[in-house]
């Protein structure tokens, strides 16, 4: 039971880390596009 909980928690933490990394990468790409005049 405790191992199950730990495993679920670890997966949730990894998912959150991936989302945050994707969010940072997204902002980086948006900045590139805006600076190169591709934005509105």
């Amino acid at each position, binding site marked *: 039971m405790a191992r199950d909980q730990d495993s679920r928690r670890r*997966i949730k933490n990894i998912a959150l880390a991936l989302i945050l990394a994707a*969010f940072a990468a*997204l902002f980086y*790409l*948006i900045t590139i596009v805006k600076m190169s005049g591709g934005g*509105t």
Partner: protein
Amino acid sequence: MHDRLIALELDPAVADASEVRDYWLLLKPNVMSLVVFSAAAGLYLAPGNLHPLLMAVALLCIAVAAGAAGAINNSYDADIDRMMARTRRRPTATGRIRPDDALAFGVTLACMSVMVMGLALNWVAAAVLALTIAFYVFVYTMWLKRRTPQNIVIGGAAGAFPPIAGWAAVTGDVSLAPIALFLIIFTWTPPHFWALSLDRCEDYARVGVPMLPVVAGADTTRRHILAYTLALLPVSLLPWWLGLASGLYALAALALGAGFVRFALKLSRDRTKRTALRTFRYSIVYLFGIFLTLVLDKGAQAWGLAW
């Protein structure tokens, strides 16, 4: 609200049984697909060019905003969701996610989607997105849903905003054309949900949600469905009338609308739940058909194939 949350307070061990998948389900992915599709149509139909990455970001923001509104709705309605067959498997109804966790998750996503839309696209689109979330949460979920049988008539506006958000992401303003798209979804929503509620009438009655079949009866609901499907015929022609779409679209819209009216007429004679469910399913095909036709029509116009 606070009392409701306390009443739903769960054993921490049970609440910790949540998985990543539960958080995904909290976003109501089925609803999200229709929202994303209509928003994509708004993006595509709007005049102007947008970098593909920014288009993708706009769609992502709209999808996340829709999911956020869904998560907050799940949090607020956890008490009735657990008593309805259609919703009893939702993570907040089963107790896999606590309502206050769902609320925090939803509010965080809502803030992030509006902020990113504003920073990456423009603040008009961000304002439309914020209005969409606020309308769904405050007007529909908290105010109308449990008070009036007109809940989905007025609350349906929340589901009609995405094409406006998509359009505004490209143009930075809101003109008559996206309002026509809004009106199509707004008029389509009541017969769509009433057809479903005819099938799930006992569920709504049990939890005290005053859907039209519960309050006014099935026959009145069937008459309302027919009236709205008839009203949808001229409303669906607005894009053609405003010059957004060609005559090809108008013909397709009339054909799709005639199909919807046919189902509504059949429903008023054949009072089985099976026909109600078939009408509900056709309503989804209808909306996908209308927006797909609008998109294809714009492509045909660009190639000089439409008139």
